[in-house]
């Protein structure tokens, strides 16, 4: 609304401006926009700035090239950073030449996927179910490239496969730990945007907590944003004020807000996705890691060695893709009985005795 209003005023303004100054103005604007776009481009996605350069050396070095697309920034301590770590692992362990493009929205995805395939990448990984559709479409044109979608259960002969982590198990473990560490009998789980990996982990959290401590009260909420730390923090504060004394926030960068709330209010937090203890050593008691790096590396290894099948793979505790972080500074303060109970749940998930599955 205000924009439309501005436009109208602008029209009036332009009429009053002289011809010379109008020309000067437009030239200046063009220059500025170009400059801004250049800068924004550097920050926004690395593909624009960096794909061209390493191409030549990439081909010469090992010939095995892997590309990754992520929906958000790769330093978000959450969803996107696990994929980036996976790419680094692929680079280290398999000696692949890697490239990545971050903040790739759905509207640009096809462009990036096709671009990497045309540049001769053997594997293109799209980190999120939203990349499944464009990949299945484009895969038909590039039979020599593997297209890998994470957090999805799709496949297409001969060259589209998917891997997903059993986030329900991840949530189940987080809920178990939270419930056993709670003294007030109230725990909280906060999710960011409404996407399966997050909603599954929040749902799993509730199940795990209720199974571990019957009668426990579990508060859950979704903030709808993975950027808005203020919202995540206020949600956590509202739950802590209602009595929750262990908080889990699974909202990528915004999840930091949840941990900050726990720190400020002097309660505990459970980390999600990566080991978050370093963010708040006296607050994050334990994290439940979803090891996309390991999952991605094992699948890409299969591709490199020609053993890959076009099928969906779901990896969880059993496959070593979901596990607990060390307790760090809490090692001595958490009673052994509590640790044993958490371990017991982990073991029964591992053996398959306890079945917790994602809702797709």
């Amino acid at each position, binding site marked *: 609304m205000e924009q439309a209003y*501005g436009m109208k005023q*602008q029209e009036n303004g332009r009429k009053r401006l*002289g011809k010379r100054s109008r020309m*000067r103005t437009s030239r200046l604007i063009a220059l500025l926009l170009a400059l*801004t776009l250049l800068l924004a481009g550097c920050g926004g996605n690395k593909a624009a700035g960096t794909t061209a350069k390493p191409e030549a050396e990439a081909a010469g070095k090992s010939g095995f090239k892997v590309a990754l697309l992520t929906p958000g920034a790769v*330093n978000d301590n959450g969803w996107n950073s696990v994929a980036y770590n996976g790419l680094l692992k692929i680079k280290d362990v398999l000696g692949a030449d890697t490239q990545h493009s971050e903040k790739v929205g759905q509207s640009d995805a096809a462009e990036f996927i096709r671009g990497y395939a045309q540049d001769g990448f053997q594997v293109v990984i799209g980190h999120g179910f939203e990349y499944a559709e464009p990949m299945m479409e484009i895969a038909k044109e590039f039979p020599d490239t593997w297209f890998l979608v994470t957090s999805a259960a799709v496949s297409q002969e001969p060259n589209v496969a998917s891997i997903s982590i059993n986030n329900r198990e991840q949530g189940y473990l987080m809920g178990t730990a939270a419930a056993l560490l709670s003294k007030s009998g109230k725990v909280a789980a906060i999710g960011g945007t409404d996407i399966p990996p997050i909603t599954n982990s929040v749902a799993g959290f509730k199940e795990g907590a209720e199974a571990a401590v019957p009668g426990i009260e579990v508060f859950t909420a979704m903030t709808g944003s993975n950027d808005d730390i203020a919202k995540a923090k206020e949600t956590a504060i509202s739950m802590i004020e209602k009595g929750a004394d262990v908080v889990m926030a699974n909202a990528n*960068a915004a999840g930091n807000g949840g941990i*900050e709330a726990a720190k400020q209010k002097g309660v505990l937090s459970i980390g999600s996705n990566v080991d978050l203890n370093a963010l708040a050593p006296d607050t994050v008691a334990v994290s439940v890691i979803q090891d996309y790096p390991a999952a991605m590396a094992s699948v890409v290894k299969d591709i490199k060695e020609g053993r890959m099948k076009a099928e969906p793979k779901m990896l969880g505790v059993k496959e070593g893709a979901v596990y607990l972080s060390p307790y760090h500074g809490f090692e001595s303060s958490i009673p052994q009985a509590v640790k044993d109970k958490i371990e017991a749940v982990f073991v029964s998930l591992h053996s398959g005795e306890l079945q917790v599955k994602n809702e797709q």
Partner: protein
Amino acid sequence: MSADVWINYAAAAIRLSAIVLLASLGVLFMARSGILNIGMEGMMLIGALAAVLGSAAGGSAWMGLAAGAAAGCLIGLLFAFLVVTTGADQVIIGTALNLLGLGVTTVFGRSLLGMGTEARQAVSLQPWPVPLLSDLPVVGPLLFQHNALTYLAFLLLPAVSLVLYRTNWGLSVRAVGEHPLAADTLGVRVHRIRYQCCAIGGVLAGLAGAALSIGILNQFTENMVAGRGFIALSAVIFGRWTPGGTAAGSLLFGAADALQLRFQTLGIEIPYQLLLLFPYVLTMLALSWFSGRTRAPAATAMPYKSAANRA
């Protein structure tokens, strides 16, 4: 529901409003001098990053605030140079500023502060309970247990009102925003006033950014402003370009936001997607309700060439 729940809720509403209020007072200063600033989002991001850098380097949150304000001031002056001196289109420069803010803070945030869990953390601004007053029942937890920037935001409100309506300088600002030519012929330095307003707007944007990065959190995360710059702009329009109305707009939005977060935790059986919409729907309804009577400063978004320089 007990009284505590309501007090906690209102305190959350105040915390969430304060950030928008700081930013919207900045937008207001610029708007009253005839400058449409849709680049608030980018300015706040730059302020947020500068505050973390300042706080991490200087080892104190106050250094962070100073750095945030200084960076905001600089970016405000850059904006002024482009739209006042060169007379570039304010909508386009504002948009460019938003893109610039996101790009610059991403690049420098990563290169200077590091990535992921190893990212450098800063000293955050702690809540400062006002002695004596914070112990009062009800009023204490509601109004006197916040951090310095929250107090500042609400103290600025009467100050801004006073400056705009009770000082000569404030009169000049309003005159410049309504009819720069008339102001110019009476000896008001139009460009100087607009520069000053942009600098003030920039400082407030920087502080609003700092309120997020070191007030709410202790580090910088990308795109952490998350749309609050635009909400600040709509708070000004909602408030019909008056300080009181702007504050009402900020409070309304903060209250609605805090309310939807509570709704979710109360376990009311409404899909949370609808609850998330609530603050925005409320803002839209409020805007359409008041839109009949809104009137922007007449010279909004129009570049001005001084009478002496007219060809």
